């Protein structure tokens, strides 16, 4: 109960703070500055007031308007009058698809590599994967995205197919078409994620592989493979899952670079463009979504823990 109140307060305070910060410092009026012929001040004022963005209206009034809108589920308007709610809903879908693909690939890859590295501790695979991970961790997303684009151009040229697409979510919307578009951005998210997860999972596995119960399982005559899968991996997945859950939440608004480079119109990319066009309501809306995502992730992590670790003393 206390936690529920805590979480609710977190969502309200976070989005309010974001709104206030944006409302005080951003300048939606600047969007009209470069127009020729310059629109009349009264016209601009009217348009801005319509969107609840007019800096001449009292801040408290604007805040109350925004809050009462949010309470009704109305996210407000952008400076040119479009509804924020519908836009963000659509973008949330885009981001969700991208992040799900990236996270799934990254998690599978990371867990597989981490497991194999731990089982062959200090062996050739451990060293090799360790080296690759080191390299991946050092590559910024911008660079990785550009490398992947260069690689895709080369791949398309050599095969002569134009299979990999570097921009947008889809052209005609078919399943194969969507796949062609998702490969590169998903990899941009997945590779660094896999690198971190593999390290994380490797150390979790190493802890578990030294546990007494793994020795017990070996002593009852299970093969090494069965012991690793049924006893070690199963237990080591518990901390790794929590990590992945929170990463998922963070990526929902944190995939800015990937979305921007590959032209996916998601939430992260929208946050940047909203700051540039001084769309106070959009910025606050995205913050609210981030807060809700964090809270949901905490809840999901809790549920997953209960499922994966039924024996945990509570």
């Amino acid at each position, binding site marked *: 109960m206390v936690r529920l109140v805590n979480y609710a307060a977190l969502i309200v*305070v976070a989005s309010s703070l974001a709104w206030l910060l944006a409302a005080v410092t951003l300048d939606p009026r600047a969007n009209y500055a470069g127009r020729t012929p310059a629109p009349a001040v009264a016209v601009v004022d009217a348009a801005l007031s319509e969107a609840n963005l007019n800096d001449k209206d009292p801040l408290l009034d604007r805040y109350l308007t925004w809050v009462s809108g949010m309470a009704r589920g109305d996210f407000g308007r952008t400076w040119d009058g479009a509804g924020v709610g519908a836009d963000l809903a659509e973008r949330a879908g885009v981001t969700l698809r991208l992040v799900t693909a990236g996270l799934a690939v990254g998690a599978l890859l990371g867990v597989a590599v981490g497991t194999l590295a731990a089982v062959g501790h200090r062996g050739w695979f451990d060293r090799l994967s360790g080296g690759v991970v*080191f390299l991946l961790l*050092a590559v*910024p997303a*911008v*660079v990785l995205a*550009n490398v992947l684009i260069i690689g895709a151009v080369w791949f398309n040229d050599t095969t002569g197919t134009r299979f990999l697409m570097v921009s947008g979510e889809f052209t005609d919307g078919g399943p194969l078409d969507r796949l062609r578009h998702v490969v590169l951005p998903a990899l941009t998210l997945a590779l660094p994620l896999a690198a971190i997860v593999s390290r994380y999972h490797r150390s979790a596995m190493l802890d578990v592989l030294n546990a007494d119960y793994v020795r017990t399982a070996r002593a009852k005559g299970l093969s090494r493979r069965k012991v690793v899968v049924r006893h070690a991996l199963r237990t080591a997945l518990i901390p790794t899952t929590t990590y992945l859950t929170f990463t998922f939440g963070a990526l929902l608004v944190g995939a800015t670079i990937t979305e921007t480079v590959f032209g996916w119109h998601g939430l992260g990319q929208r946050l*940047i463009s909203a*700051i540039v066009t001084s769309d106070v309501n959009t910025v606050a809306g995205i913050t609210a979504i981030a807060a809700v995502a*964090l809270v949901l992730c905490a809840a999901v992590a809790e549920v997953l823990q209960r499922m994966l670790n039924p024996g945990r003393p509570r």
Partner: protein
Amino acid sequence: MSATLPDVSAPAGVPPAEPPPRMFSATGIAGLALLSFLGALAVLGPILIPWTASDRDFEAFLQPPSANHPFGTTASGADILVLTLLGLRKSLVIGLVVAVAATAVAALVGAFAGYFLGWVDRTLMWVTDLLLVIPAFLVVAVVSSGQDRWIALVVLLAAFMWMVTAKAVRGVTIAMRDREYVRAARFMGVPAHRIVLRHVIPNLASLLVADATVNVSAAILAETTLSYFGFGVVPPDVSLGSLIADGAPTALYAPWTFWWAAGLLIALIIAVNLVGDDLRDRFDPALRAPQ
């Protein structure tokens, strides 16, 4: 040894001797060497090169590497070598300062929250969660305008980078509260804040050093991202991030505008990570104990 003992018999078992301090591992030495090399480049390079950041060579626009400009030139005729080294300098400073500041905040917040629990914990963790969801982009973009922008940037990056470490520190501290040496200190009458500073935080050193190095890389990468969107270091200052951002559009047909900065950035982070891995091993008391 028993001769030095009074009326009790000698403790049995050969006491393991204090081993000599462990040397850096081969990878650690490699990392250290690379890091020093990059540091020297960043400090000395811009002094030795005939060009400065504001110089324009009006005979060479967007030229590939040549004897005059070993790293090539930008579209406006600036020497990429000097830009890159200045960027390296700024990125190094940003990375180190931000990491140290963020890790210090994380250690204090996490350790106090985990040790005291109750309302102290709830308050601190609530603030931590709040900072996790407030978009750093927004704050950095709107707050760090004006003069000395990059110092504001350092402060803001640090302010938005300690939360995850703080949560990890808190978790470990909660486990440590019931360690017997912490209890022993409590029962001895050591005040709580001193227990945190003297027993809890020092025993987190391996975690903190590891996280500090991760944070160096993370700070450099975060600065890169911010600069990529134009919210980070802005002209006349340059950082590796702003150079990468400037070079990305021309990466395909003028690779020198992009790859020198990208390559140095990667080398820098690899060096930091190598040193960090080694430091973590050195600080881990479990590894120092005789097996």
